[in-house]
């Protein structure tokens, strides 16, 4: 199927015909006679992050079984062009067992003469300063390295030949949510991310057990605070409420008993360990069973419950298909997952081949989450890599989804929760930043320590001594209680160390070590794309861009407005005549298309 022919056939293609409405809830596989360019486009959008017309046409030329296998059985597809994460090397063994707060760090230093692998000065001013500097160094270094890790991952999503692997890793990240803000160690996040990739379409049982024992999750859910005689329920509660069964399928007593079974679970830097002294190995009663259960036993009992397979299947269904899942569908998919011993791939294969997946209620009804939006935008424009401008972290923050830093352990609310009036504007602005990156005004957010530390830096550079340089002058008369501000200054400039100065020094040392993110804009060529597709007129170009970018058709009024706009920008309706300067007008048109509500849907 040659995509040139689609440019002519506007009426057929831009209706994005789905399967009929009566196909809803029907798990019967579609047949090759059902297969089409639109079905292939729908599949690659949902099972991945969308594709160019060429990529879609390639899938459309296969049978549906082969197309689904191509996406699901990705291990047989070469992916060697991807580079492993290139760490900056900011960690060293002195940073093991990093204290929970600056107060804890300085207390340890006062008591023992050293902390964080750094010694207290024997004499002189601010004897504890080296420890404080180091404390802030690590906070900043791990934060920045995590941003680099997020960039690396998002770049992978754009460049990979295994889009389903990345889409599933993203799903698991939202499901087994942990955030570096609390974990405070990019290595643990990297370790967990590798696990999510390894078991992306693997086995849920193995994935659950490894995630629960992974240092990132242990830290995130305070597992180390869970000890014999004083169980901390956080870990047990979230495992059951969010990761496996959902509220209502266990009692508070079950949580308390499960917490006992998880006691003694700790992270030994990057390894899992059970501390026998802290582990409660007496009998527990959990979900009706009694025994000397340990944490893994608890997980296995949870997996034996019917509700667990249904909960996971339903969540996968809502992620890939649509929000509303009927109880019958939930039961069937749950049974399928259980019958396959919690293997994910067969379940996905069933879903992606089903009539339900291609039915009318499943087409064009899903709101793309921010990371999906970003990645699919780059892929559809033909960019081979994630650009450094606009900055991914800044974009993520504005659109409301920051990789490796979900808001809470519940991950991100999906669907309509992504869209507010503010969010809709932000998405249109993101599109503008991709098509017209403002390189002139770009400043690297990773080099911005915030206004307070900037002020300290300026004063130190101007020759002020540390004490003078670090006093914050508050809002003064008419502002808040002067007393509180003064307290903050006193604390910051305490005799044995100065926290504001430590913040500055730590920040500087971290940015010295961190490898910089390359700041190139996305490389793509819209004029080449539309001309290669056979477009001769402004109308052809608009049709091609619409097919390329949207999964939902636009109405005739919008199409006319877009064509009129492009013709005005080109100064002609003849694309050939405008060939030498058409890139900018085409990008403006693409911005309009990407600002539509339709662009948020897939």
């Amino acid at each position: 199927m040659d995509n040139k022919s689609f440019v002519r056939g506007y009426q057929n293609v831009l209706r994005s015909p789905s399967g009929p409405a009566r196909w809803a809830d029907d798990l019967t596989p579609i047949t090759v006679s059902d297969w089409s360019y639109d079905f292939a486009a729908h599949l690659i959008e949902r099972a991945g992050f969308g594709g160019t017309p060429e990529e879609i046409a390639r899938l459309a030329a296969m049978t549906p079984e082969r197309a689904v296998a191509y996406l699901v059985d990705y291990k047989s597809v070469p992916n060697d062009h991807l580079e492993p994460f290139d760490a900056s090397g900011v960690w060293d063994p002195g940073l093991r067992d990093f204290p929970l707060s600056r107060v804890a760090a300085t207390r340890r230093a006062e008591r023992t003469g050293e902390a964080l692998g750094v010694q207290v000065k024997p004499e002189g001013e601010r004897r504890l300063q080296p420890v404080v500097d180091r404390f802030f160094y690590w906070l900043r270094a791990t934060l920045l390295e995590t941003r680099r890790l997020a960039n690396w991952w998002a770049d992978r999503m754009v460049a990979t030949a295994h889009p389903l692997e990345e889409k599933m890793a993203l799903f698991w990240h939202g499901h087994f949510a942990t955030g570096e803000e609390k974990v405070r160690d990019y290595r643990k996040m990297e370790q967990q991310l590798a696990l999510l990739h390894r078991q992306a379409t693997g086995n849920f049982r193995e994935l659950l057990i490894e995630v629960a024992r992974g240092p990132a999750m242990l830290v995130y859910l305070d597992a180390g605070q869970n000890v014999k005689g004083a169980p901390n329920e956080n870990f047990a509660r979230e495992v059951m409420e969010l990761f496996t069964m959902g509220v209502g399928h266990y009692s508070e007593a079950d949580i308390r008993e499960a917490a006992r079974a998880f006691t003694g679970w700790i992270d030994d830097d990057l390894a899992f360990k059970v501390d026998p002294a802290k582990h409660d190995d007496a009998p527990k009663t959990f979900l009706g069973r009694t025994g000397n259960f340990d944490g893994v036993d608890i997980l296995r009992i949870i997996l034996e419950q019917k509700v667990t397979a249904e909960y996971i299947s339903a969540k996968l269904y809502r992620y890939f298909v649509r929000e509303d899942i009927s109880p019958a569908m939930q039961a069937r998919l749950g049974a399928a997952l259980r019958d396959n011993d919690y293997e994910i791939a067969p379940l996905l294969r069933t879903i992606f081949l089903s009539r339900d997946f291609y039915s009318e209620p499943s087409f064009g009804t899903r709101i793309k989450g921010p990371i999906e939006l970003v990645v699919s935008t780059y892929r559809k424009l033909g960019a081979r890599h994630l650009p450094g401008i606009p900055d991914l972290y800044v974009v993520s923050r504005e659109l409301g989804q920051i990789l490796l830093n979900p808001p809470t352990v519940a991950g991100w609310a999906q669907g309509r929760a992504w869209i507010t009036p503010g969010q809709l504007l932000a998405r249109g602005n993101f599109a503008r930043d991709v098509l017209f990156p403002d390189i002139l005004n770009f400043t690297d957010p990773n080099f911005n320590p915030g206004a307070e530390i900037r002020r300290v830096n300026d004063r130190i550079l101007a020759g002020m001594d540390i004490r003078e340089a670090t006093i914050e002058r508050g809002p003064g008369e008419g502002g808040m209680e002067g007393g509180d501000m003064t307290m903050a200054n006193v604390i910051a400039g305490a005799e044995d160390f100065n926290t504001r100065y430590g913040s500055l020094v730590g920040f500087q040392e971290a940015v010295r070590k961190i490898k910089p993110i390359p700041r190139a804009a996305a490389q793509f060529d819209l004029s080449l794309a539309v001309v290669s597709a056979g477009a001769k007129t402004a109308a052809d170009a608009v049709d091609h861009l619409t097919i390329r970018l949207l999964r939902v058709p636009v109405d005739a009024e919008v199409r006319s407005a877009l064509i009129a706009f492009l013709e005005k920008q080109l100064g002609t309706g003849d694309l050939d005549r405008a060939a030498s300067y058409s890139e900018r007008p085409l990008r403006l048109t693409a911005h309009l298309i990407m600002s539509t509500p339709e662009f948020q849907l897939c």
Partner: protein
Amino acid sequence: MARFSSIGGLARRDLLRAGFGSVILGATGLGRSPFFSQAAAAPAAKPGRILVVVELSGGNDGLNTVVPYGDDAYYKARPKIGIRPDKLRKLDDHFGFQNTMSGMERLYKDGHLAIVHGVGYDQPSFSHFASMAYWQTAAPNRGELYGWVGRMADAMDPEGHNNYVVNIDTQQSLAVRSRGHVPLVFDDPTKFVRSGFADEASPLKLLAARGHGANEAQEFMYGVSRSALQAEQLVRDAWAQYRTPVDYGLVRFGLERVAALIAADFPTKIYYVAYRNNAFDTHVYQADVHARLWTYTSDHIAAFVKDVARLGRADDVVLMAFSEFGRRVQENTSQGTDHGTAGPAFVIGAPVKGGQYGKVPSLTELKQGNLVYTTDYRRIYATAIQGWMGYEDPSSILRGEFDPLPIV
């Protein structure tokens, strides 16, 4: 001397440098320009009463907020994290605020702050998400599609006027989800702008203003799009024109933006803001963190009340603050506290009859180590709906009879 309000440390010139505060149209028309919405929302009718709801997420430890220093049982249960009387701002012979809550102490002493003790509900949930959802829907232990604020808006304004409800957040809260209203939801007013080039202005407006979608998801998107279109310029102008000498503290979770909209005479009746991301979930080494959280919260709320008075709207604005549950009476072994049940709620403002309401829950007659609630949270909602906003039938919104408290 007029001072400029700022967000997160950015001075005003940084806002302008960010490009969203002014109109720049060069000869080539390639400047960046904010777009003017076609028809501004109907100008505000006679300004009336406003309700501001503040959600403190994470399960605030009530016992270390309104500290019962007069009760020995408190210190017995909290040998490490119990706050000593000399470290408290005493409210009376029995209770005190944390030392960092200077703003709220002053409000209490001025008679503008009401504390409601022991707020909770039957069969309390210990899950952040479930319990917060129950607070947001006023439907404990039930599924409910719309939020209590959404239902209040639908009841009080059946025509569904624009901007009746404003939610300062990056995501729409369940509390404001409504059948007939599209709540105005935004976070950073300087980013609440559809940036583009001059030539794009007209088609962008056209694309944003269309009618009917082919399915529910599209319908939803168009509704949101129209809301953004009509509100965009208003919000940005309100923020750009806003000047205040009041310092909103180190963590500004939205009340300064509310004040800006009030100053601009927005027609909004209900504002919903939150201290987000389970910030108050202090399982571990609670003392410093909790003290800081309340510095920020007390400073921010007190600043808002002060600013509203400066705007001459002190008699029109009431604020309520709550958390989805309190925490266990006994401290845990990590010098923190675990999820609990009842906790104090606050109703604040010049129209408020300050003081203490509700029966103080016992620290010794517990249920599995947790406080037994004494006031159903829906009574506070009824107080807001009927006592303050003057809607006579709160039971239709709350799906049950709940007596307002005599706070307003």
